């Protein structure tokens, strides 16, 4: 399987440290403004993307995007605009959480826009399978945080961006059914700014570990 594309821009890690403020803006903007140009991927890009998804991406992300390994996110049913923005973030090396650096910077470095859009479209059309229900004692606390935030230390409600069903919107990711472990890692990456997204840094910085665990467990249990 060969992934072919043109025109990746790469920044060495050492440079990133000096450009974090700029990257924060870039990522925030790309999350907020990334588009899939409104066009459906053409047929050849669609075929190529499906083949790549089944023969390459599936090794980590599972058949049809339903990953069984908590290290790797479930992609089935993910919002295409969000997914395309992330793939572009990997390609430009502006999304810097540890597994993005270790795996996805390489995977995405030669993706062209057509491939990114076709992959995003493919995963958005896959049916999410239910995840295993985690520790039920955490679910109620998780739901409370998701719906209402934690007023005592300034954590806003997740529901306001990710939606009542946690299916997200065009620009905000679907979280329902996502591996709790993956969500925890992302929250930690937002806190440390390794994954530098201003809005999520603001949300995550006041979350306590037990609260993160509860909300992650709640999200994994959602259909």
């Amino acid at each position, binding site marked *: *399987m*060969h*992934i*072919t594309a043109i025109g990746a821009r790469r920044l060495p890690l050492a440079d990133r440290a000096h450009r974090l403020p700029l990257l924060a803006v870039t990522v925030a903007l790309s999350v907020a403004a990334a588009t899939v140009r409104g066009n459906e991927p053409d047929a050849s890009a669609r075929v190529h993307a*499906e*083949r790549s998804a*089944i*023969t*390459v991406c*599936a*090794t*980590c992300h599972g*058949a*049809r995007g339903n990953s*069984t*390994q*908590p*290290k790797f996110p479930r992609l089935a049913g993910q919002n295409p605009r969000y997914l395309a923005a992330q793939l572009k973030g990997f390609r430009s090396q502006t999304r810097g959480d540890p597994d993005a*650096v*270790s*795996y996805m*910077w*390489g*995977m*995405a*470095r*030669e993706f062209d826009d057509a491939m990114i859009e076709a992959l995003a479209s493919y995963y958005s059309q896959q049916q999410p399978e239910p995840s295993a229900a985690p520790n039920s004692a955490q679910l109620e606390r998780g739901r409370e945080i998701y719906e209402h935030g934690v007023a005592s230390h300034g954590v806003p409600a997740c529901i306001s961006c990710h939606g009542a069903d946690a299916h997200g919107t065009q620009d905000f990711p679907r979280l329902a059914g996502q591996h709790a472990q993956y969500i925890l*890692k992302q929250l930690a990456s937002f806190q440390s700014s390794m994954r530098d997204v201003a809005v999520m840094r603001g949300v995550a910085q006041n979350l306590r570990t037990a609260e993160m665990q509860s909300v992650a467990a709640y999200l994994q249990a959602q259909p």
Partner: protein
Amino acid sequence: MAESDREPDFPGTAMDGNWRSLAAGAVGLMILLAVSPQAGAVPSFARQTGMSCEACHTVFPELTHFGRVFKANGYTLTSLKQVRDVTGNMKELLELSQIPGLSIMAQISDTQLKKALPDLSKSAPGVAENGTVGFPQQLSLFYAGKIAPNFGAMIQLTYANDTGSIGIDNTDLRFADVAVLLDKSSLTYGVSLNNNPTMQDLWNSTPAWGYPYALSNAVVTPLALTAIDQAFAQQLAGLTAYAFWNESLYAEVGGYRSAKQGVTNQLTGGAGPLDGTASNVVKGVTPYGRVAYEHDWGRHSLEAGVYGADFRLYPGAGVSLRGPTNEFKDVAEDFQYQFLAEEHQVTLSGTRIHESATLAASFAGGAAANPTDTLTTTRLWGTYYFRRRIGATLQYFSTTGTTDDLLYPPTAPHTPGVVTSANGSPDTRGWIAELNYLPWLNVKLSAQYTWYSKFNGAGTNYDGVGRNASDNNTVYLLLWFAY
């Protein structure tokens, strides 16, 4: 590690040209060829895919599920820019990575035996220096990566301090492709051309890439070894075909022929044809087969499988390549369990190789005491790593087999023993404990201790001239890196 037909060091075990000792070489040579630390950690794969070592390895050379799939796909996954050529109808003529898949690997070591060996100089008695520095023990150049679409390779050239020369090491050329089946599952299929049975395998439970991943080459090694257990590494050429369905069910069949290195035909002065001056030449084709099933769930991966080969060998070494052969029928089981979390990595693995030997040639020639012998090798090990940085491995190993005092000969008068067996038994048993520290993912510092409770048939005085199994206990310090 590259091997050649090394001459043994001690009189009494030398294949000195007479039929009797030469035929014993059917097994004996395997032993001499067998000290084969492997090496597989190839940064050019990381350059090619743009992914960190951790995508394919827990800690090198052990593969993750992703690494197994990458290998099955012929090492061709790439995200490098390509130099291309296409015809007018867009048929691809060339797809060449802009960076060649080259890597360098080195092993630098120090070895200390518990008890020094006898000094073989004429002014003996005395003892050899104890403490062997390998600088390098091994230095390798790899080409590892895509060659063309669907065609990739791992080719290793190695300089080793024992041979003092550069030779071919583990080499695997693959053509592979993936079919998407009607149910949208994947079927990876391909062929491998390789020079060491099991080096093409995907799991680290089989001999070529099994633990120990590195061993000293300045130690005393037991006499007995099964044929499939790297006895013929780099002395065979095999073509195998495989299929890997849904990244879980794996099946492979193929065959191996002799492909000797450093052996010439004395008439032509060329690399062949092989004749009776060569030793242990495969008659016809050695069939090889492998079936394995891997189940992955959450952070866990479990594999169980079987593999085997049937070697029919002409002893050669002065006897023409005709008439009776020695047959070594090897059937083995293996398993591997991996738990891979963010901070903790646990691997449990093992294999058991059962060999049925029908020694028609050696028995007729008076070089084996029995017409048939058996040999069983078992290895079980567990590895733990914390953050891929600090880890430890503990392995139990055991070889048991039929007593045969011609295959596993006693010490001859006025010779030093050490590599002999007073009672003709091949039984050897012990443990290896290893500590590892990796300051970076491509640099490993190891301290390894090998402890023998039994060696060539006994715990004490195994050679009949006073050496105990534990005298061969070894401390091995290793710096191992690849770039």
